[in-house]
């Protein structure tokens, strides 16, 4: 995999360490700071192009055409944006990843064509949200830039869905039970499988329906 690492300091060094030992990877490192270039060259023994990654002659020099991944790690959101857009439009890079500081840029950069936008504050708030779900004994995992949520819901004996085959519970169409954990085994469910108390249901849904499906499963059986 050809990976381009554009700007960044500690982030760049970390990404380089993650990928440099695999002989299948070709790392292309570009950095605007002479100081960072010297540090990387001295400690990582790889070639680094010195210059701004939003300039075409620098990307030409670094030879990034048809790279698989381009990741922009500077602390300026707009510099990262400009570098990613140039790499994608003019150098046919397959996937561009942009680090941003301002959480409100996450959605907008995606809309403007950046394949993946990473923001630590945004991730932090997403984590806080899933922590608050944890309090209700639910764990979540978000995938595909938060378009898919996988939620773990443990079943209690007083839930309406408990002791019924899946076909009988009128499970909403906006979600699906991907798997059931039961006594350390995984069951891939079909309509005949009966949900037991202490099962953990692994539910796939969109983020906006997550709380609906949790309430559906947690609905108590009528006495």
């Amino acid at each position: 995999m050809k990976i381009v690492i554009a700007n960044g300091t500690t982030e760049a060094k970390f990404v380089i360490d993650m990928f440099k030992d695999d002989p299948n990877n070709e790392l292309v490192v570009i950095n605007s700071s002479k100081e960072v270039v010297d540090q990387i060259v001295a400690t990582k023994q790889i070639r680094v192009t010195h210059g701004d990654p939003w300039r075409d002659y620098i990307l030409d020099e670094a030879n990034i055409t048809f790279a698989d991944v381009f990741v922009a790690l500077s602390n300026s959101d707009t510099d990262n944006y400009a570098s990613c857009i140039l790499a994608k439009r003019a150098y046919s890079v397959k996937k561009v990843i942009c680090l941003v500081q301002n959480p409100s840029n996450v959605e907008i950069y995606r809309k403007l064509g950046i394949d993946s936008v990473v923001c630590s504050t945004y991730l932090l708030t997403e984590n806080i949200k899933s922590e608050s779900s944890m309090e209700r004994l639910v764990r979540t995992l978000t995938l595909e830039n938060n378009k898919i949520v996988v939620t773990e819901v443990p079943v209690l004996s007083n839930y309406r869905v408990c002791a019924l085959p899946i076909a009988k519970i009128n499970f909403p169409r906006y979600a699906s039970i991907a798997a059931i954990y039961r006594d350390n085994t995984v069951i891939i469910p079909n309509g005949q499988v009966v949900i037991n108390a202490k099962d953990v249901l692994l539910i796939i849904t969109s983020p906006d329906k997550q709380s609906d499906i949790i309430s559906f499963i947690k609905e108590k059986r009528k006495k």
Partner: protein
Amino acid sequence: MAIKNKIIIIGCGRLGSSIANYFSGRGENIVVIDSSEASFTRLDNNFSGYTAVGDASDLSFLENQGYIETARKVIITSGDDNLNLFLTHVADKIYGVEEIYVRFDDPQKSLLISGEPNVRGIYPFQLSFDNFLALDEEDEK
């Protein structure tokens, strides 16, 4: 839907302020945005538009004030090419602004706005060079 009647000028340096003064003289509905209050001293004493201090790279600032939704024309003149590129794409692709003018120091940025008939690039380097060639040709005669 908001009425699109404003001219938004981002950056109040020499170019931005001159454009703002020009449109103000024509009685247009103008908003000038700059991150520094001091920049607005470049505006004429009888400047009739609005000024707003803020970070144009923070889209929530542009949105909260309702500026960009009501823009008929957006003129982007900040000294940061990458910011200008981002704002151009936002005005064009997110808000569908009909007329966008953007200044770039690096003429190569034209690569990234080509094919958009509503976006016009202004390149001070190119203008100076063309000007030099014209002067030189005149002197040669």
